[in-house]
């Protein structure tokens, strides 16, 4: 019998190890798996690379990981936010490596990682600092940059509801990066607001099919 539901967040993140690349869902605070991130704080793993849209705020989520000294690198599109102080300080003091990627390129690189592609050509970033060190190629008269896939050792996601197969639905704009990150890591873990019986999710409306999910844990209401 397939049952991806685990008892607690400690079991949920099992297998995470120092040096790992961790994909973390969310945009702002919406769709961030705060409980799973807290579980990392209770382990001794460190030297992590985080891939996420933002870099945490107000000492919670990714900012808590930064403050706990667990991160080597952050790959994101928008670290600057009101309430984002740790990343600014650590970046200034060169205590964390920061890689800033256009948001659409970030989504597409993660998708490529999950889709088994070797890379893609995007017009985004041509003639900018983003192009530094990247191959520029003219295709049908237009310039593009070659961008490579991103994959994680583990992905930490947040969804609204799950069943025991790991089928997921999200809530409003808390969907954001979660569905693509679900496809692009060796271990994919999701924190949900609610676990429902198999068959309760409409087959037409499941956003992330369970095939992408390894473990589901109840995270408590948002």
């Amino acid at each position, binding site marked *: 019998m397939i049952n991806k539901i685990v008892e607690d967040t400690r079991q949920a993140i099992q297998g995470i190890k120092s040096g790992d690349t961790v994909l973390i869902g969310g945009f702002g605070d919406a769709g961030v798996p705060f409980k799973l991130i807290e579980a990392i704080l209770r382990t001794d793993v460190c030297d992590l690379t985080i891939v996420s*849209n933002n870099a945490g705020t107000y000492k919670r989520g990714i900012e808590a990981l930064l403050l706990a000294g667990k991160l080597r690198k952050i790959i994101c*599109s928008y670290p600057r936010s009101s309430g984002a102080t740790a990343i600014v300080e650590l970046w200034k003091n060169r205590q964390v490596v920061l890689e800033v990627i256009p*948001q*659409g390129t970030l989504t597409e690189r993660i998708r490529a990682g999950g889709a088994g592609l070797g890379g893609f050509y995007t017009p*985004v970033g041509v003639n900018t600092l983003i192009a530094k060190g990247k191959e520029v190629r003219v295709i049908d008269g237009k310039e593009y940059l070659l961008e490579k896939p991103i994959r994680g050792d583990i992905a930490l996601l947040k969804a609204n509801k799950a069943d025991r197969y790991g089928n997921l639905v999200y809530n409003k704009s808390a969907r954001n990066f979660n569905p693509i990150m679900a496809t692009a890591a060796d271990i994919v873990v999701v924190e949900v607001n609610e676990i429902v019986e198999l068959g309760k999710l409409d087959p037409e409306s499941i956003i992330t099919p369970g095939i992408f999910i390894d473990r589901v844990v109840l995270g408590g209401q948002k």
Partner: protein
Amino acid sequence: MKYLPLTERQIAWRAAQDVSDGTYVNLGIGIPTLIANYVPEDREVIYHSENGILGMGPEPMPGEEDPDLINAGKFFVTILKGGCFFDSSLSFVMIRGGHLDLVFLGAFQVSEKGDIANWTTGDERTIPSVGGAIDLAVGCEDVRVLMRHTTKTGEPKIVKECTYPLTAKKVVKRIYTDLAVIDVTEKGMIVREIINGYDFDKLKSVTAADLILDENWKYLIVPEI
């Protein structure tokens, strides 16, 4: 003659008049966000938010905020009838694939050729943050900029060549400032509207790019808001 530069709300009001019925629009963070308040009510406009919303509505009533329903600036919003949610991947298919009709952005600088610099000053002390800025500038056929005509210290923001790191080349079609409305065309920058009490010569003195005065130029008139 005395003149009153437009307020940010007035710049947004002016831009809003150009949003026609039935368009799909993305409003960048900053002054552009204000546009939604001033689009004439008889026009049905669908707002896109790059974190995965189409049909975004105004901010919610106090007490009705939903932490899962925010815009790209991380402020609480609502969703209108006919709106929908999707993931970041599909959101940027919309943006980069040219599916939006109109994108309004803020900018540090815009060049004569329509180059835009709006994501980083390149300042070593300011953390770079790009978000969806480049995708939005590159993806849409009709990118418009809302900004003050000059910096706080009076430096022109409309320039021959951007000195700040570029966001994208040759993308800006129209600029709304607190002094004028200017189109970026093949022939150069054409001034369509200037605020009352100001004139073309004065405008040239605060602009570091060549300007052409449209022979049918008009006063840039906005309501008090």
